[in-house]
């Protein structure tokens, strides 16, 4: 355990991977509050197919760590019922690609319960789910459909890209009063590790993180797209291009102030995500800038995204944005006038 460099007060830290940080957060949340329960497919005995829930069953028992039948409708539907009654369920959906059987419960129920009951029935469920490509999972173990959830009023949507944020955002999610879709970039579950503050480390929602300061162009990314964006920025620095990289972290609520401040400074924007381009989250970011940063903009807003095709298997490397595509878009943006 070491002191966390960013933290002014002495906080013990532990080096963890992203998935370990998720696991740590779950342990701590369950220790702190007996109302927190975990449910999902293979989350108990098996410890989750990615081991995110490893050890929970042993420590907290089968009353609080529930291996469910194969039904996402059932997982989210029962989690909603638990939340209405006063528990704080953290539901795991094995892959974001398999969330759709629960879509009705999420968009028609979870997102709308507080509103439609006039505030009488808040419904605080956290849905954790691994998302995104990069593990050769093909069409159904790779998708990034965060835009569906972002478009649904009543849901908060967050995406960590570092172990510290994975823990900090998950602890905030469990403590939140609203439903939270917690997207875990499975591609960097183990690929990225870093120092994670011990204890009740929370990262508030709605605050973007500047990964790297820059003055020529703003690169907005989240999840597994943050590392290649940062890598592109490093390459570009060598070419004399100063790219600011902003990790949005929370898509809903969005840190508009940070986005606008960055573009006010740079005048150029590149948005990066894995999801298909058409009506993807990048569209919202571009629309926001085209409305509110119009007079600062010096170049067209570029989107570096997955293509408007289903997610492939053999051609995953072609589909996914990498540092080269990001860097190319940034160069174009900087050259544009």
């Amino acid at each position, binding site marked *: 355990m070491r002191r966390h460099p960013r933290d002014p007060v002495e906080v013990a830290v532990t080096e963890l991977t992203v998935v370990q940080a998720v696991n740590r957060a779950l342990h701590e949340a369950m220790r702190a509050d007996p109302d927190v329960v975990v449910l999902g497919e293979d989350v108990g005995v098996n410890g989750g197919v990615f081991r995110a829930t490893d050890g929970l069953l042993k420590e907290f028992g089968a009353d609080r760590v529930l291996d469910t039948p194969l039904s996402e409708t*059932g997982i989210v539907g029962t989690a909603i*019922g638990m939340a209405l*009654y006063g528990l704080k369920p953290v539901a795991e959906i094995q892959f974001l690609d398999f969330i759709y059987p629960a879509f009705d419960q999420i968009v028609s129920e979870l997102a709308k319960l507080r509103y439609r009951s*006039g505030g*009488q029935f808040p419904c605080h469920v956290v849905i954790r789910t691994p998302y995104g490509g990069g593990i050769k999972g093909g069409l159904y173990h790779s998708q990034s459909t965060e835009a569906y959830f972002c478009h649904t009023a*009543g849901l908060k949507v967050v995406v960590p890209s570092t172990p510290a944020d994975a823990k900090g955002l998950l602890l905030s999610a469990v403590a939140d009063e609203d439903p939270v879709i917690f997207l875990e970039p499975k591609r960097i579950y183990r690929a990225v590790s870093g120092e994670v503050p011990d204890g009740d480390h929370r990262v508030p929602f709605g605050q973007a993180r500047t990964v790297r300061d820059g003055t020529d162009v703003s690169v907005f990314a989240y999840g597994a797209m943050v590392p290649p964006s940062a890598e592109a920025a490093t390459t570009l620095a060598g070419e004399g291009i100063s790219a600011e990289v902003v990790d949005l972290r929370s898509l809903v609520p969005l840190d508009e*102030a940070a986005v606008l401040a960055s573009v006010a400074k740079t005048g150029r924007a590149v948005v990066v995500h894995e999801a298909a381009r058409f009506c993807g989250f990048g569209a919202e970011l571009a629309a926001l800038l085209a409305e509110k940063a119009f007079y600062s903009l010096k170049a067209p807003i570029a989107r570096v995204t997955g293509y408007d095709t289903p997610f492939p298997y053999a051609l995953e490397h072609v589909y996914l944005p990498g540092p080269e595509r990001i860097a190319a878009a940034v160069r174009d943006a900087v050259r544009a006038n």
Partner: protein
Amino acid sequence: MSTTSARPQSEPASPDGLSEPRLLGAYRTMALVRALDERCLALQRQGRIGFYAPHAGQEAALIGSALALETDDWVFPAYRELAVALVRGVPLQAIVDQLFGNADDLVKGRQMPNHFSFRDQHFVSASSPIGTQIPQAVGAAMAVRYRQAPAVTITYFGDGATSSNDFHAGMNFAGVFRAPTIFFCQNNGWAISLPRERQTRSATLAAKAEAYGFPGVVVDGNDVRAVHAAVRSARGRAVRGDGPTMIEAQVYRFGPHSTSDDPTRYRPEAQVAAAREHDPVARLKADLVAVGRLDEPGDARIWEESRAAIAAAVAHAEKAALVDPLSLFDDVFARRSPRLEEERGQCAATLGTPSRSP
């Protein structure tokens, strides 16, 4: 809010049988909700409320089941269960305010009529999508058990809902986790225009419970005592830890699916006429008259009182203020996000209203 409540405070909530005095109380509530149903259909025709989903014909099932519950039990309704809310102590005024969607409406005018939500009475927010409440009731029951509360959850749904994804998921989870839940299916033989025989080829709907490893029972939904007994017994099983029960109450709804529906397009009038012969309200009245608990003048008084209470509630509801336009932006989240705050400001400007942040 008015204080018209269906259940006199002195009566015990749910003894194991329906005594004659309690039966008379049940009859009063049946009369009240029958009269309300008639009144609401008229209000909708007159354009005074926007929509209504009637329940006449289902009173014994609704009230018999509700009388079998305890205060700490939780109800997960569909959109036809205002009688259950009344039995649980929801004031008539609160129900009527919801139908009008006025400023007193507890759901703040956000939902169509019939989509009630009464936190204090553990009557969970109703929604339109068919079946969604079913797994929610199971989850709440799992929470009840986790908290070791001596309570159950009950969920109401129709014959059509047995085809929904949520029915399958909810029933299966209830079986697997032995959740203290009562699945109360009101089979009126129709899902809008689809007859029960073409909804599913299952012999009975209750038989579906077998597929999930727990008992299903069929009960005459026109017999308030039989319904009460069935729910009471299911409740007993559930609190004893013996798991869920499905109850299929066979009922017949006399009216249309809703005020948007024209049942003459698909439903033989003779079927309705035949069903009216078994009207559960008339049946209970006859029983009470037979044992000397009720006579014609007493009955007339009950109806008169019901109509008067309804008239008063309607008059009050129509006088209530309109919903504040800027309340549109409340309750999306626990606190308004910056984005919602901004939209609220834009909306206020559009309306020419100053945006006062409460």
